[in-house]
């Protein structure tokens, strides 16, 4: 067992899968130089045919990947910054995502879109700080947000192998984290949540980098005798509703910790489903990003992002309260 770095795990997954499957290739801006580390060293070993630098033409290279996928390839499309997904929104949600349905199942569209560095990162300001995974879940696109190195490896592998379009958001805040890993890490199936820490009093659903913050808060609250279960859905769509149900059936209480905008974000979805379908002993709570673009100054940025203090308060809050009638 050695400690694997998140970013290296992404690179390892891509390398392993390109080795195993000649139909896999990566394209995007500066992937030969590997500005984002995902394709590090690959051009030397796989050549320019499978590590393709693209012009700054997101709409076209996203559509190109779909065409290549229809013709039998498994493209990985790298987006240098999360908001480039907005530029490529149409070819992802309106073309690749709908193609199988529109053709009545004639074809599959196995494209992986990867954003290595999503979310805020201290001082990159409004156009470079989005973490837009809820938008893709709304549009029905399979979406994963790995929180740890092993999950990054395993979910990236599964995304590439999946026969449908999948968007992988690697939060900027975890790219440098490490996790114990076996010699040969394994695929992690889509739609399978992970209990990071078992607990009895409250289920905290945390996504991406917030898993680490949730664990810290759980640790802190344990000292006050509060037993928090930290549960990570890992994939946003498909979502492991059964896994979450099992946790909530045990704890009866739910807090969601989610770094998307509040309105129509992922936390809202989890609360809604839980309110409809799960037995809750107290009203659920969510701690999310505010409904605002991220300002430049770091203190303002921080003020809008979900925080550990807010989570701790929310957990204490759900323990205080019962469902009111």
């Amino acid at each position: 067992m050695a400690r694997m770095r998140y970013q290296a795990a992404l690179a390892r997954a891509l390398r392993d899968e390109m080795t195993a499957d000649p139909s896999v290739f990566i394209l995007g801006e500066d992937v030969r130089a590997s500005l984002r580390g995902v394709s590090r060293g690959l051009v030397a070993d796989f050549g320019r045919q499978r590590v393709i630098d693209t012009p700054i033409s997101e709409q076209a290279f996203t559509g190109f990947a779909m065409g290549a996928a229809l013709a039998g390839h498994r493209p990985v499309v790298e987006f240098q910054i999360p908001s480039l997904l907005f530029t490529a929104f149409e070819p992802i949600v309106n073309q690749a995502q709908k193609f199988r349905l529109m053709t009545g199942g004639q074809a599959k569209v196995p494209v992986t879109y990867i954003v290595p560095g999503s979310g805020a990162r201290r001082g990159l300001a409004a156009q470079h700080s989005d973490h837009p995974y809820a938008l893709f879940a709304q549009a029905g696109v399979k979406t994963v947000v790995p929180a740890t190195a092993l999950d990054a490896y395993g979910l990236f592998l599964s995304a590439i192998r999946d026969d449908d379009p999948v968007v992988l958001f690697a939060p900027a805040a975890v790219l440098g984290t490490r996790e114990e890993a076996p010699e040969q890490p394994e695929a992690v199936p889509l739609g399978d949540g992970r209990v990071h820490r078992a607990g009895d009093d409250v289920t905290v659903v945390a996504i991406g980098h917030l898993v680490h913050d949730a664990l810290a808060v759980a640790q802190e609250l344990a000292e006050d005798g509060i037993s928090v279960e930290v549960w990570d859905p890992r994939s946003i769509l498909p979502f492991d509703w059964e896994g979450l149900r099992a946790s909530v059936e045990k704890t009866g209480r739910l807090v969601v910790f989610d770094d998307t905008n509040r309105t129509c974000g992922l936390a809202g979805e989890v609360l809604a489903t839980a309110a409809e379908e799960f037995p809750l002993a107290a009203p659920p709570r969510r701690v999310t990003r505010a409904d605002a673009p991220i300002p430049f100054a770091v203190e303002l940025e921080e003020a809008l992002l979900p925080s550990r203090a807010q989570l701790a308060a929310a957990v204490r809050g759900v323990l205080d309260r019962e469902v009111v009638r």
Partner: protein
Amino acid sequence: MRSDLYRTMRTIRRFEEQVVELVNANEIAGVTHEYIGQEAVATGVCAALRPDDVITSTHRGHGHVIAKGAEVRRMLAELLGRTTGLNRARGGSMHIADVSLGIYGANGIVAAGAPIAAGAAWAGREAGSDRVAVVFFGDGAVNQGVLHETMNMAGIWKLPLLFVCENNGYAVSFAASEATSGSIVGRAAAYDMPAVHVDGMDVEAVQAAAETAVAHARAGDGPSFIECETYRFVGHHTAERTMKLGYRTDEEIERWRERDPLRVLAERMTPDEVAALDGEVERLLAEALAFARESPRPAVADAREYVYASGPLPREGVSA
């Protein structure tokens, strides 16, 4: 072969006329965009293609799909919303496709087929094949950025890709002359690819231009661009009838009808040949309509099928 070209054009024409009737009779849901008047373009271009070549089409896609070889009866079944339809009643007119024949779909979004065709062109070359891909699009699409991005990528990667612009003079009501700065072929030429302008009412002229471009692509010399000057004899879509958009005159339509591509070709053939082919097409369409009408409608219980190739069914709109 002229008879093949004529048969295809006649099939498209009669298919479209049939479709208009069925839309007006509410047997086909939604709206369809007819290819009437433009038959020479799809027919001429596809005559230069092999079965393993790939095309992407437009909202006005029936002509391309027929010319590339799709079964007419399964097309009609699709438009009637039957499970025997090419897309199992999931696609309809705007998404009609037969991936097994290299038809990567009509498309509801202007110019969206361009990069898809580029990806297919690249994949063909990667597979060691000399197959080509063709993207069809209208004059309106020439002002969509993604088309330019694709022309550039095709240029730098020397993709075996044909850009076929069907300039029918209008994007819905907006005249190409008013919408377009500079010339269409000039834009393509700026990406350093051969770009020609042909009479889109003469199927043989279109075919000749396509053959040159296809040979260029198969030889590894990269993309080409063909602008076909053509015209649609009917409205933008079946619903235009009731709309009185008034963007063109009856005289203009009449002038173009005189250059009807079917007539242009028929004049190069014997009347007997033409009559025989016309009869053949009538039989084909009558059979197709019967087939489509007899085919079953989809089961409502399957409404969430075919969304994902792997993984669970999408969630319903109400909790279980």
